[in-house]
């Protein structure tokens, strides 16, 4: 965390960071710039990355458990592509720059994510139940559609293209405390709800039928888990852009290391996701310094090979 606060296009010595954090040299003229950078940029960014990583990995492990599918991640049921579409629409039509101007993109992303998930569920609902396979197929189809629409809009748009692209690759277009305050409530509510679902997710590993025979109210818990995970994902995506791989691989790594018990796996994924994303974010600031890379590129570049290595090395079947 200290590293994350210290490193950036302006590198601040760790000692100075500690001094600023603990308020020891207030009023020192040379320090005011550092103080501003630390309190207004670095700390909120650090917190935002921790929140987003926790949200993505936490909901990723919940989706994997719920759908009993190792490929499931926060994006599978359309949350991310919907968010992307929402954001790009907002950027390309130049939403009037009101007071809330800079808030419009995340807001549009949030709405896009929620609408897409609702659409996917609406389509795949068969009578009273929602078959998992249909749900995943619908998610893939709707995601592709939304992604195609996004590309279409991007090609047709003249300006603002870079901003949209950066956002899509997982670079936050926002800075300061606003995104933290905007994302935190949704992410915290979503994750706390998920953390109470460990036992239910364990039961669901045995399939809907056995779960019902064991006395689990399957529709209720399934709805709660999906709502909580989508809420956390949408908030993370809306304020940090599309950051891939965290929600997919962190749960797998944790499952590989600590086993499949969701009462342990959920908190571990949340901690692991926060750590991983924070580390990736630090890398994104130093690799091409002083220029910053979108963190989504780092998570994929670092995450994919590591994941492949893990798959290769793991002898026992852990899924």
């Amino acid at each position, binding site marked *: 965390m200290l590293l994350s606060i210290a490193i950036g296009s302006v590198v601040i010595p760790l000692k100075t960071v500690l001094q600023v954090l603990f308020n020891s040299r207030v009023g020192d003229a040379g320090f005011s710039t550092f103080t501003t950078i630390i309190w207004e940029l670095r700390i909120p960014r650090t917190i935002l990355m921790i929140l987003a990583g926790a949200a993505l990995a936490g909901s990723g492990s919940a989706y994997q458990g719920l759908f009993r599918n190792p490929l499931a991640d926060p994006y599978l049921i359309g949350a991310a592509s919907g968010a992307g579409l929402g954001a790009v629409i907002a950027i390309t039509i130049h939403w009037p720059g009101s007071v809330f101007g800079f808030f419009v993109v995340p807001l549009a992303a949030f709405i896009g994510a929620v609408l897409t998930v609702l659409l996917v569920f609406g389509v795949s609902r068969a009578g009273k139940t929602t078959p998992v396979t249909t749900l995943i197929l619908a998610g893939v189809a709707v995601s592709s559609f939304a992604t195609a629409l996004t590309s279409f809009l991007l090609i047709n748009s003249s300006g603002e293209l870079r901003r949209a692209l950066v956002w899509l690759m997982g670079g936050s277009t926002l800075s300061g405390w606003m995104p933290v305050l905007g994302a935190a409530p949704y992410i915290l509510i979503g994750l706390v709800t998920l953390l109470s679902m460990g036992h239910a997710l364990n039961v669901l590993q045995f399939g809907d039928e056995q779960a019902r*025979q064991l006395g689990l109210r399957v529709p209720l818990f399934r709805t709660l888990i999906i709502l909580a995970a989508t809420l956390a994902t949408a908030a993370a995506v809306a304020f940090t852009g599309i950051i891939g791989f965290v929600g997919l691989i962190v749960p797998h790594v944790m499952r590989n290391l600590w086993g499949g018990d969701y009462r342990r796996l959920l908190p571990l994924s949340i901690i692991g996701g926060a750590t991983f994303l924070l580390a990736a974010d630090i890398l994104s600031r130093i690799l091409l310094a002083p220029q910053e890379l979108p963190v989504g590129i780092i998570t994929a570049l670092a995450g994919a090979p590591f994941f492949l290595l893990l798959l290769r090395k793991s002898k026992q079947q852990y*899924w």
Partner: protein
Amino acid sequence: MLEIKDLSVDLNAEPVLRNISFTAKTGKILGIIGPNGAGKTTLLRAISGLIPIRIGNLELDSENLVDKSIIERAKLIASVPQSSSLPMAFNVWDMVMLGRTPYLNWLEQTSSQDDEIIQFSLQQTQSLDLAMRKVGELSAGEQQRVLLARALAQSTPVLLMDEPTTHLDLRYQIELLDLVQQLTRQKNLITIIVLHDLNLASRYADEMMLLEHGQIVAFGNPQKVLRDAVLSRVYQIPIHVDKKTRIPHVFPK
């Protein structure tokens, strides 16, 4: 005593069960036999609550079960599924623990009493030494035993088993059903088992039910149900039942 009265079930507008009425007794094993598609599994699913009962009635000791919530029902009826679809990464203790689901509070925490019940269930199924193993590492026979332990952990008066011996070799088949028989007597369970193997059914069932096209065509002790004529007709091959032995022995001619 589990009583089913005039149960009829339609699936996709097709009649699957018609006017099923019978009583399953405490401390006894009821074996359900019949050819594929006769409705054996559907009957178990209706009893366990997976299929809502719209026509007919289901009573346990004169208490109506039809409108019970799934939590209440899971405290009365436990099902042992086939072992084919288990999450392999689970460890045995955690899986047996899931049998306590209907008793957990909203925080879903297990008490020390739950732990005792889990341990006792593992002991009774001779699988305590498997507690820390992964489900995926167990043999098919061991998997059936720990699934039985999970059902016992549900602490229910009724135990349902759907073809529990399918993937087991002869030794495990006998060991498992010996165990089920012993537990049924000991704990006064109402045990209902769907079995394909007529000779296993003959050996272990106190009472048998022969289903054909969703209807009961014979009900009673094995001596009464296992007859040449009715089996030959229902299974559509010539079948002979040797009743000279203590347990009627069935073989195709």
